[in-house]
């Protein structure tokens, strides 16, 4: 528009332009460019700031999940309580419930407090017994059932403490908040401090966050992402085994062999459309096709994997076709020219050259599938699962959870300690994604070739 006015203006009134003094039009153009650059830079700065804020909140919130407070107390496993018949019969030992072990731990703690001369005002019996996690009796019971010879001995039991005490050493709970909190009390925190001074209570690195299963709402301190990691891994395995061969085979056929007619056009449009279909739709399809019709079990990684395969296929096909298209026709022509068949030219020359693009597309598709919760909601994987699935292939048919599902579940729990766990699970998920993306970049670097 401004060009037009300048063209249309009489020559005499036009200002003299020089290389040293820019005319208004040039200045405007330069200013527009500077503004555009500033917008771009601003957009990048804003997104970087958002990313930093996100990472910062997740890291500060979730790093605590990787550390856990433990109490080490001597526990005498008395015959009278644990094995009344004295015959170490596993059936009899199994009848002794966690309730008894809980009492045993409580007595041991009372004894420690008395022996060490720890005296705290207002310490109620509930505060004392509440210090130990509700998970501890179950772990002690498992230990004894696995090794009945322990009965009669005095062992040093390493037990989890209540999530509130753990939160106290991570700064989540303070003396002030404990005063108002129905689940802990300042006296309980003082007891924890006294035990810490005796060297019996310590906050340590927590591997069990990565290896243990989910825990119920009363035991945030025991909850871990073990089953979720395994479930996600199994699903990725299914996606890898199914989506990659099917996707690559479909794209090679469509790109190299299929006749270009109306039918292939329709298929192409449909594949592009499928890539944009909301993932929950695939969940509905999975429920109808695999569970109701196919008779596959609910909550199983195989069904999750199949659903995610359907979801990832279009992404992989589109990426693979783009990679195949990017191979110059001269490669094909040369191969055909020296007498190769079309299949030989594809598998010996085109496919290896398209590999980096295919791999990148595949890994990005899988990373997307890894973070997906919505389709899993309908096939019963958004669930509380406590038993580890066995090794594949049987394990694929047993109930499991998934990492994003675990995050979703934990954010809904009432106990604030689960927020820390959820952030911890997000960190694990991000590390998973980071590893996959790094792998994608490495593979591309390794195989990339430029023309």
């Amino acid at each position: 528009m401004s060009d037009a006015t300048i063209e249309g203006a009489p020559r005499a009134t036009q200002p003299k332009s020089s290389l040293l003094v820019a005319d208004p039009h040039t200045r405007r153009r330069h200013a527009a460019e500077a503004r555009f650059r500033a917008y771009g830079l601003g957009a990048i700065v804003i997104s970087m700031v958002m990313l930093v804020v996100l990472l910062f909140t997740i890291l500060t919130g979730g790093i605590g999940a990787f550390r856990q407070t433990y109490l080490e107390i001597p526990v005498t496993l008395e015959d009278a309580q644990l094995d009344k018949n004295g015959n170490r019969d596993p059936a009899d030992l199994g009848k002794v419930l966690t309730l008894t072990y809980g009492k045993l731990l409580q007595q041991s703690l009372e004894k420690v407090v008395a022996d060490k001369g720890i005296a705290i005002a207002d310490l109620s019996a509930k505060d004392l017994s509440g210090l130990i996690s509700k998970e501890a009796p179950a772990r002690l019971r498992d230990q004894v059932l696995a090794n009945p010879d322990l009965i009669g001995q005095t062992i040093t039991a390493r037990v989890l403490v209540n999530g509130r005490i753990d939160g106290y050493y991570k700064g989540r709970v303070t003396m002030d908040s404990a005063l108002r909190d129905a689940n802990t009390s300042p006296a309980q925190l003082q007891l924890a401090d006294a035990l810490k001074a005796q060297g019996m209570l310590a906050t340590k690195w927590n591997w069990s966050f990565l290896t243990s299963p989910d825990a119920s709402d009363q035991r945030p301190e025991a909850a871990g992402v073990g089953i979720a990691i395994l479930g996600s891994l199994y699903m990725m395995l299914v996606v890898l085994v199914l989506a990659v061969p099917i996707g690559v085979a479909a794209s090679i056929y469509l790109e190299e062999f299929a006749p270009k007619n109306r039918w292939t056009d329709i298929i192409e449009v449909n594949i592009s459309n499928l890539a944009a279909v909301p993932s929950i739709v695939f969940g509905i399809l999975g429920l109808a096709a695999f569970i109701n019709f196919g008779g596959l079990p609910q909550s199983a990684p195989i069904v999750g994997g199949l659903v995610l395969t359907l979801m990832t296929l279009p992404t992989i096909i589109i990426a693979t076709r783009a990679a195949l298209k990017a191979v110059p026709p001269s490669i094909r022509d040369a191969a055909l020219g020296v007498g190769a068949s079309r299949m030989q030219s594809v598998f010996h020359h085109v496919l290896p050259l398209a590999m980096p693009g295919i791999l990148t597309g595949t890994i990005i598709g899988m990373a997307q599938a890894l973070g997906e919760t919505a389709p899993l909601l309908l096939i019963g994987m958004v669930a509380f699962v406590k038993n580890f699935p066995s090794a594949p292939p049987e394990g694929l048919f047993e109930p499991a959870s998934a990492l994003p599902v675990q995050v979703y579940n934990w954010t809904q729990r009432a106990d604030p300690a689960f927020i820390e766990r959820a952030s911890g699970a997000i960190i694990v998920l991000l590390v998973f994604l980071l590893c996959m993306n790094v792998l994608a970049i490495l593979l591309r670097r390794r195989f990339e070739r430029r023309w």
Partner: protein
Amino acid sequence: MKSAKLTVSALAVIAASATAAAARDQIQISGSSTVLPYATIVAEAFGENTDFPTPVVESGGSSAGLKKFCEGVGENTIDIANASRPIKDSEKEACKAAGVTEIMEVRIGYDGIVFASDISGNDFAFTSADWFNALSAQVVKDGKVVANPYTKWSEIRADLPDQEILAFIPGTKHGTREVFEEKVIAAGCKESGAAEVFNTELGEEAGEQACLSLRTDGKSVDIDGDYTETLARIQSAKNGIGVFGLSFYENNTDKLKVATIGGIQPSTESIASGEYPVSRPLYFYLKKQHIGTVPGLKEFAEFFVSDDLAGAGGPLASYGLVADPELAATQKAVADEVTIAQ
């Protein structure tokens, strides 16, 4: 070539799946998110103390759970549906049509619904009528039906604090919403005498509707998420008052302050005695036809309602469940496998 081989092996996996899908050895539970924490606590204890595997517990709401429950009988359908309301007749019919003809109804206890605000805010002592006047679209003022004019609690009743009205109530998809409407808003409508005026001024049907229609000017906010979202909203809008389950409040007493209703402080005791008005029974529904095919199903039901777990002083009560005074009758019904009429 290689990919072709992989495809073949993948197809083999799918084919094998049909046979491997046979025997299921763990119990599958779905349903109400209110019952979920109790169900997970019981499932965990059941897995620890018995040789049966830990049941798998899903959530998704009472209606969604009962819908899944009524899909049919067999390995790939769920065994138990948790519900925060009794099963509806329409659901019973759907069950019957799908072949689920023997359903056991088990009441596990009661759940209280509380009103709580930020810990640093004002103290509140509500009546149901206050809530009706604060949230209803139309109220009765000087004997006339008018659009709700109140913006502050103190305008409703002078005893209440001089604070803006802002309520976070459960969205319509929650079972809690029904209880809230029935036991608070409808009760308040009657209590304040507005119900009569509505009936005479607007007629029977419209009057009833007017009792339950809530204002839409932003003073009453529907929360479609869970209680954690309500808590987050209160923490950002300090003058808000939220509707919570008793167990959620008990886990967050350091952040929330609970209000009384009709002078009664909500607690497991006041709810059990019936003094605190806003409570509801919690249930689970069990497919009797699955007893014997799914290992441990009956044992789980008996374990759930045993005195050690669901009784007063048990782990469920310590989490916020109000123990059922008639638990012994429930235990007997479970032992005898009593089914409901369809």
